[in-house]
């Protein structure tokens, strides 16, 4: 055995420190080549046709979705399997867009398959990155007849993916204001309530830059879809003032809904479906689309690059656009369906249903949170469309509000 070297008495001996430094330098040289950019050129039409003409049905599909976004019995997917003979694997692996993209990016960047054939992502920065980086397979619309026939016009004209080249909507939701009816006695109609000193320390705002940015702009009467850098700065100032005056309790993620329901905060920016589910559970929460405006967002289905079963994936996406299937799905998830015919289907079902079921179905069919009226839609705006450069300006403006 070698004799043990004496232990250092004053931290690392210099020799040792140098050796460590040398090692890291070697690693540095290894890693210094940088991270490759991948900005993808838009695909040519014949390339897309070429790709799809080579695809065959494989009899299986892997669907990656968010939690609580499919009935527990997987009804729509079971029907799909029966009708098409395609077996499915359903995975609730997406909790947050940024988080999911952060995990998917290195895999897709390396040209590896993600292991999913259909992925659901919200319109927003990460979806935009997916499209810009060429991570989405362009869709063949000749194989999407149900989408063509049944999708609402609004869901065919979306600024973030013109012509539905890469994505089709899964469901939509509205960002508005939720309030606890036990503590808030006024009728909340305006976004100014979120800035009312009366509710000091009882207001919840969202941490997401796009969400809070939109509300800052609504408060100033700015249309986020047409906003400029100067508008963002003004909105940032407005929101900073709201924070510095002590109105905001916290900038929330999904946890805002618990805080409103428990009364930690009295009113908050909120997502429609969350509130509706709480109402059905009997909790004292109400939801409004403020008169100045609310945000409409859409979760979208896409096929990630390298997916093993693209044709099966496309068939599944189209299948979900059959009104009966869409109705079954929406009855559970209670967000805004891209298939307008669902409203009548729910009404019809309510006619034959009894008791509690009947009441719930009627409530759903009449709910402006599930089927916004034209007047509601007129007040709704999308996220500010941002290119990569603009994001680097937009994000810090609002993150300096939420992450002080």
């Amino acid at each position: 055995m070698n004799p043990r070297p004496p232990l250092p008495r004053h931290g690392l001996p210099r020799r040792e420190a140098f050796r460590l430094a040398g090692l890291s330098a070697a690693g540095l040289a290894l890693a210094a080549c940088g991270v490759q950019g991948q900005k993808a050129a838009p695909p040519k039409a014949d390339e897309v046709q070429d790709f799809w003409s080579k695809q065959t049905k494989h009899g299986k599909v892997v669907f990656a979705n968010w939690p609580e976004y499919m009935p527990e019995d997987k009804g729509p997917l079971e029907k799909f399997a029966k009708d098409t003979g395609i077996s499915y694997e359903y995975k609730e692996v997406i909790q947050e867009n940024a988080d999911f993209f952060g995990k998917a990016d290195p895999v897709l960047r390396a040209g590896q398959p993600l292991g999913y054939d259909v992925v659901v992502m919200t319109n927003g920065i990460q979806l935009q990155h997916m499209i810009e980086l060429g991570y989405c397979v362009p869709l063949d619309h000749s194989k999407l007849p149900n989408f063509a026939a049944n999708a609402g016009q609004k869901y065919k004209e979306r600024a973030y993916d013109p012509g539905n080249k890469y994505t089709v909507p899964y469901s939509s939701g509205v960002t508005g204001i939720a309030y606890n009816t036990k503590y808030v006695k006024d009728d909340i109609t305006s976004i100014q309530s979120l800035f009312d000193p009366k509710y000091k320390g009882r207001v919840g705002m969202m941490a997401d830059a796009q969400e809070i940015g939109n509300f800052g702009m609504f408060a100033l009467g700015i249309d986020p879809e047409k906003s400029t850098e100067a508008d963002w700065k003004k909105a940032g100032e407005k929101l900073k003032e709201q924070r510095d005056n002590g109105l905001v309790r916290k900038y929330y993620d999904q946890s805002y809904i618990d805080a409103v329901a428990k009364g930690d905060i009295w009113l908050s920016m909120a997502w429609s479906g969350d509130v509706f589910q709480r109402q059905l559970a009997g909790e004292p929460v109400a939801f409004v689309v403020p008169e100045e405006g609310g945000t409409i967002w859409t979760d979208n289905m896409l096929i990630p690059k390298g997916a093993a079963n693209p044709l099966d994936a496309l068939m599944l996406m189209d299948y979900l656009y059959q009104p009966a299937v869409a109705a079954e799905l929406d009855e559970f998830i209670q967000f805004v369906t891209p298939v307008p015919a669902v409203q009548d289907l729910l009404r019809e079902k309510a006619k034959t249903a009894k008791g509690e079921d009947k009441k719930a179905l009627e409530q759903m069919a009449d709910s402006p949170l599930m089927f916004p009226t034209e007047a509601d839609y007129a007040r709704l705006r999308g996220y500010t469309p941002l290119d990569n450069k603009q994001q680097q300006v937009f994000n810090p403006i609002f993150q300096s509000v939420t992450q002080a």
Partner: protein
Amino acid sequence: MRRLTPYLLALPGWMWLAIFLVVPMAAMASVSLQTGNAIDGYAMTFSVSNYTDALGRYSTQLVRSLLYGGMATVAMLAIGYPVAYWIAFKGGRRKSVYLFLLLLPFFVSFVLRTISWNFLLADNGILFGTLKGWGLLPADFHVLATTFAVVGGLTYNWLPFMILPIYVALERVDPRVVEAAQDLYATRAAAFRRVVLPLSLPGVFAGVLMTFVPATADPVNAAILGGTANTMIGNIIQTEYLTNLDYPTASALSFTLMAVLLVGIFVYARVLGTENVLEAAAR
């Protein structure tokens, strides 16, 4: 062959460290000096300004993190030392039971434990709701979304990592040494101060090391329990990395944090006066 055996046995460990610690660290060091964006890619420009920019923008959060980490560590020491002392000297035959009880909550996920604070400490929840009902607290009293909640959460989450090393150090103190001190006319306080405490310092050092570092870097407690002015550096790094895809800034901040923590710990080791404290802690 025999001479080589220890080296061969240690080889997997070294390989593991080389692959999963040294390589990522080197990659991160490299990224922290690059410029670009996620879409067009990043290129090495040796831009030290990544560090100065990041520090300029986020020095508040960095200082706050060190402060919260420090406050939590002091709180853990104040709470943990007596507990470790009690288990080591008064625990008797049930020592292992007490240690097990101490660790029991840690069979539940870290995030869940933190979220349960949200439930316990809700403004009108089981604790404050009741106290408010009795008129003992003003109606707008709250703990969530305050500095106290964040530091409290940090303290709670790492407390066992403070207690265990101190316990191990105290466990080894021979009670006869204390008796000897008392035989030599030391008061109980003096015996503790001059005999037990110095003997337990390696444990204290290890405990502080194991708690101050993760508590300072933690993003979870600030996100779940904090308010509008409790953002810690861990949250910023997370946002820069996952939301903004600004890998250089995230890496530069990580390295800055690491450097500050390393310097802090070496200074601390000197101040504590135990020159061979690393050696002692490793024993």
